[in-house]
């Protein structure tokens, strides 16, 4: 909590915005990120098509999600190897 308050104070000071504006921006950013996570998660679980995911979040995020999942799966297989 202390960290959050320090970050908030820094952002208010550096951006010359009010605390309310910074909080609104933070909420907006977090909501966008959570929505993106939700969509990418649904795509990777096969609940929506690749096309739908691209339309919703853009190809860069979809490709990043695919690469990251592949890399992690490889790491998992390597690490869990008996």
């Amino acid at each position: 909590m202390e960290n959050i308050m320090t970050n908030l104070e820094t952002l208010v000071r550096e951006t010359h915005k009010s605390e309310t504006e910074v909080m609104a921006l933070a909420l907006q950013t977090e909501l966008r990120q959570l929505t993106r996570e939700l969509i990418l998660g649904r795509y990777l679980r096969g609940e929506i098509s690749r096309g739908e995911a691209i339309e919703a979040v853009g190809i860069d995020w979809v490709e990043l999600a695919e690469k990251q999942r592949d890399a992690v799966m490889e790491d998992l297989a390597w690490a869990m190897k008996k």
Partner: protein
Amino acid sequence: MEKTDYTTIQNVILDAGPIIHLEEIDSLYLLTDFERLIIPDAVWREVEYHSPSVFKYRDINFEKANVVFDEDILSVCKLFCLDTGELEAITLCSQYPDSILLTDDASARLVAKTLGIRAHGTIGILLRAIRRKQFTPHETMRKLKEIPLKSTLFIRRSLLHEIIEEVKREYGLI
């Protein structure tokens, strides 16, 4: 492709990412499980700039290595817009047969795969620590949870959650 016995990996070539990220979550010593930790010159400079404390650990013997550039590798790396550190790390892998590359860069991993180089990342090292008895499954899960809070490694939260669930499943913690 020939199978590598991962219990006897001797040469590990390091990109900056895993060194910095493991240090951020106080897990750099996991690298001592490998015989040789080889860092190309450009990566050494990058780590020295971003995390100078890395080289203060006396128990971890990093070796700095010079890279002899290879035109073929250079052109593939340029195609994928890799930076100098990643380029040097991949090139170095070709100088050390049977080495593995540790990188957290998705493009570098893709290039490595294209060139037949085995590559893994910070997550892999944390998970491997359970099998190598460096961490208990709980310790690894704690470190995984610390990533978004303490580390600059970017990983989607849902993917991290999936990994944690997989660890729980694998080790009967559910």
